[in-house]
């Protein structure tokens, strides 16, 4: 899929992962930095979003600091029940990501709620509906958040 990306697209993605100018005319600033016309940067971003390379253009909030609840949870799902349990878990709007991983703990999902106390309630609901234990593993310390992908 990378081949489909124009070198200017790569330049824009690499630059914008690091931040976006906070001034009245941010595109003009960016245009000077990248040596690409402002209109072209905007139209390329629009297309990159449409094509699914970029999921969002804006802020990544810190849910806990804004008063929300956020955690990583894991389950040991019997392989023959995996699809059924996946459907059950994903039906909750509070489940943000759900990854299958090759381990006895084979289901890993992120729970994000508007209020911190809702995390425990959702976990209880999932345990009740599936009959399986949910292991709650909230972050205690963060050493790095990079999430920058060089393309």
């Amino acid at each position, binding site marked *: 899929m990378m081949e489909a990306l124009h070198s200017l697209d790569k330049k824009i993605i690499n630059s914008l992962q690091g931040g976006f100018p906070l001034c009245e005319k941010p595109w003009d600033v960016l245009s000077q930095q990248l040596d690409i016309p402002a209109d072209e940067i905007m139209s390329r971003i*629009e297309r990159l979003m449409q094509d699914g390379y970029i999921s969002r253009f804006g802020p990544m909030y810190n849910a806990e600091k804004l008063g929300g609840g956020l955690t990583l949870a894991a389950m040991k799902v019997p392989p023959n029940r995996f699809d059924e349990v996946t459907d059950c878990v994903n039906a909750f709007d509070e489940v943000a*990501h759900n990854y299958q991983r090759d381990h006895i703990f084979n289901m890993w999902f992120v729970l994000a709620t508007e209020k911190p106390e809702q995390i425990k309630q959702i976990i209880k609901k999932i345990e009740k509906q599936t009959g399986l234990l949910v292991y709650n593993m909230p*972050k205690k310390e963060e050493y790095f958040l990079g999430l920058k992908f060089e393309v």
Partner: protein
Amino acid sequence: MLNERQLITVLQHGLPLISRPYAAIAEQIGSTEQEVMEYITAMQARGDIKRFGVVVRHRNLGYQANAMVVWNIPDDRVDELGGCFGKFEFVNLSYRRPRRLPDWPYNLFCMIHGHDRDDVLRNLAQMIDSCHVGDMPHAILFSTHCYKQRGAVYIHDQINGNDHLTNKSDIA
């Protein structure tokens, strides 16, 4: 007066792709361009906004493989080694989490991305060598399937009176 809650709600939909995006946001919430920019700056400084820019879908950009590598590290060395892991550009997060004994002995989690599994394993080998953690118990959990990838936090949208699914955060 700028209503911070309103600003957060409007911004969660992303910035409009227009010449003066902050002015457009200000207009939506009855504030001024200057005030909106000042608030965003302050929210970044406080850490309420972790990053401001584009969020990429790494799977679509050629980073096909990711492994969650989990470690059982003595409590008094977690900070040191968590910091060491976090220095590598292929490590996208390095978090301390609680052990869940007896089933789950691991207390330090890092996410390693790569173009394929071999790439991830090469990166891991480099990290083990550099941080001298070859003797620390660990497990490598490759993802085999991504069933859902979207942020999902409800914030009541005071502007439109609707509840919106939002992208408050992409990782826990």
